[in-house]
């Protein structure tokens, strides 16, 4: 079970990182969301993976660690606020620059390098 969760977190992080490194705003927002899923799951997993041990007094004999859950709960909501803010920022940048490149305009120094081919 631990291996499954570790692989899940790893693939969420990897996909998130790859998308965060893209040049356009929308994939970056998707990447950030994936990354925050990964981080939330990771934080949650530090409380160990128990089944049927919800931290509600009187419901079971054994309780899983409630603290990471409390942290992650607020992290989810804050993560939503951040995603919303970033996506609106991206929208605003698109409106102001008529371009959705993360650097504000498509032709940055990177793509002006000699020998650079646009495929």
């Amino acid at each position, binding site marked *: 079970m631990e291996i499954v969760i570790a692989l899940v977190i790893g693939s969420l992080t*990897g996909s998130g990182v790859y998308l965060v*490194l893209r040049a356009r705003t929308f994939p970056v927002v998707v990447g950030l969301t994936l990354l925050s899923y990964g981080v939330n799951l990771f934080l949650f997993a530090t409380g160990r993976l128990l089944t049927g041990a919800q931290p509600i007094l009187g419901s079971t004999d054994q309780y899983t660690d409630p603290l990471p859950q409390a942290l992650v709960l607020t992290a989810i909501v804050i993560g939503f606020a951040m995603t919303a803010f970033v996506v609106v920022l991206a929208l605003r940048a698109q409106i102001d620059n008529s371009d959705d490149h993360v650097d504000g305009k498509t032709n940055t120094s990177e793509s002006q390098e000699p020998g650079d081919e646009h495929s």
Partner: protein
Amino acid sequence: MTLALVVFLPFFGALLAPLFAQAGRTAIAIASSVPAVVALSALFPLWGDLAAGHVLVQTHSWLPSLGLSLSFRLDGLSLLFALLILIIGILIIIYARYYLKPGENIGKFYGLLLMFMGAMLGIVMSSNLLLMLVFWELTSLISFLLISFWNHKQDARRGARMALAVTGGGGLALLAGVLLIGHIVGSFELDAIFAAGDTVRDSTLYQVVLTLVLLGAFTKSAQFPFHFWLPHAMQAPTPVSAYLHSATMVKAGVFLLARLYPVLAGTDQWFYMVSFTGMVTLLLGAYIALFKHDMKGLLAYSTVSNLGLITLLFGMNTDLAAIAAVFHVINHATFKASLFMAAGIIDHETGTRDMRKINGLWQFMPHTATLAMVAAASMAGVPLLNGFLSKEMFFAESLEIALPGVWAYLPPLIATLAGAFAVAYSARFVHDVFFNGKPIDLPIYPPNEPPRYMKIPVEILVVACVMVGIFPTFSIGPLLNSAAAATLAGPVPDFKLAIIHGLNLPLLMSFLAFFGGLLMYTQRQKFFDFHARFREIDEKAVFEAAVVRIVNLSRHFIRGLENGSLQRYGLLLLVTAEVVALWPILNLGASVGSAGLSPIDVPTAVGGLILILCAVMAAVMHRERLYSLLLLSVVGLMVSLTFARFSAPDLALTQLSVEVVTIVLLMLALYYLPSWTPLETRRRRRWRDLLVALAAGGGMTLITLAILTHPGDSISRFYVDNSKLLAGGNNIVNVILVDFRGFDTLGEITVLAIAALGIFAMLRQVRLTPPPGDGQGNTWTRDAHPTMLKEIARPLLPLALMVSAYILLRGHNLPGGGFIAGLITGVALILQYIANGIEWTQQRMPVRYQPMIALGVLTAALTGAGSIAYGYPFLTSSFGHFSLPLIGEFELASAMVFDIGVYLTVVGATMLTLVSLGHLSLKINADTEGT
């Protein structure tokens, strides 16, 4: 108190003096001299104590934790310097009254001058090395402002910058040295440091301390190879030069040598570093001075040379040499200040300082000429003047240096040679300026004697030169004795201040130097020709070029790192994080820890597989934005199932509702953004990003595995034990949120509120034309509000609201709470907007969400503040059990009110965000209808 007052009086004066600027130059000069005179008269009554050998220390604590105290001391050495600073300062104030022209910014000038005076007094009277350092840096800063007083001149600005760079850099070295001394001794107070002299000298850090402190002293006192800033500082107005470069600024360095003499001197390292630096500076300065055509340039290099002489004397490591050094400090200050002032008078009256033009001024200003000639004779070391006395002592001491073998002849030889150069440049100053034919092309012709009072400061100083020269024991003896005692921090050896000590070797050296120097001057053309064969280095150009090089280098560096591309920054950040994490991950060894793995069950494995596939596909298909978004929503759903699977019902509920809101939001945004991402990065770059992503993913996998398989203790025991006991709730997660960690939650809903308001602000003024289609040839559907959806959504609203109310109220004991209930309400409301359109919904539900957010945050905050009213800390909650007929017993907790605040904020923030986005199209519809 007295001593602190003496130091701070000039600073007060600096605040007040500029107020007199309107009243004219005389008024401001008088106003400026008042603090100096008061400070001077405050020092006089203390003389009796000092002469008896007492040391006055007055300490006020300032920052005791850093060892920094406002601690001032008055001993012979600081008194001597304080007198020089104050007396010459007053003379400069008078002199500047006539030197400055009426239109100049006299308020700034006198303010800075007084501040400088205060800073210098601070250096010499500090009894705490850190405090001294504060004043030390102040003098560097204020001298920068004084040198660049005529800041319209480029040369002045550059000279000032150079002085600041060199002395400021030295100040940093000194700071390090002082901190090390404090580290060795355990205190920054001078008394403690003096007592620990042996400890410092025996310390392994001694060499480092010495080097750092000497760097500070040598940069300030313009010792080779840092001498170059001083001649360029001559761009300052002459009163500033006269003050800074005779009695104050440059003397701070030699003062430091004297102050720390009992602590640092007496070792071989001290001898070699200090005396050789002094010797080179002495000779070099005297040599260059001869070739300067600018009067102030000549005096500047002469100052460099004299400072070298003082340094050399301190470096000799003998008591008598140290006394001679202190003596020469006084003598140099008097004759050099008067010479600078005389040069300023000549500049003032002729309009130039070029000695090739200024000739034969004796006919025009015999009075000034006489004064300048006496001072110059003192500089040359002519008998019956003060310069002669200290130079004789210097010659005598140079014979005492015990260097091995034939090297023993070196110091006397260099001393005599430097003496001869001094005579030669003094002769040039006198002969070239006052005799040597007629003036050539003077900008102001004929020159006149300056105003009567402008000469008074010069006269006073020249009289002092003569008095000390003829009656040394009577005039300066006691003060010198007291200063020597303080410098040596021990008994003063017998020394005689006599005009002539009899026919001996030093006298012969003086004789040789005098006639050698005159001969040199008569043969000066040969020297000039010789010197002209060398290309003269313009230090300023070298310095400026170095500055430009450094600036270019750093600009290049910054451009390389910071090219304005967020994409690049993101990459750098991630790669840095990976590099930092690499070592700990490698150190983990086997990732699977002692706790081992638990068995994999089929549902979990299938769910995990779906999650991984969708996450990877979301990245792979990212150019098809809608598909990517749909895959993202599946990932979110699977994450919430994972939470549910592993005993986190609260998280599952939250994640589920957030997921809905997020996807709706991203869909709305995608409506305005291109639906398709162009492929624009190079193949190599994509591979590189893939590598970075794989490293991140792999690293996280290993870390997670390691954490999950190692046994670990949790701090959560407390919450499990006390949730019911202290907060009266069974749902521990909710209790943590609204009670134990309520303050965090309050911060979090505030962030949420700010984000929502920020989104509202960003979109408020925006006008946007919606794209006609999705960018791939498909047009939008005409059926904006499908009937089925409309009909089902409407009756759903009251049901959803009831569920969310239930979830909110039960949150304390069962999965639920403000966050989840708020999100459920949000989802229910959004459904109405989607199904019926924004106009329809708003007509029936005219709620403004900004006040709702404010109400929510306020409710939460006030609930917290309520506990203060009952004398408990902020956000202490209370609960009780009540019973009502029919309903039976139930529980009420103040944390519930707090949760309602959370609920309101979440609903408000979610709705404000989405409605702001939704309004974009509404505005356009309204616009198009209007036109």
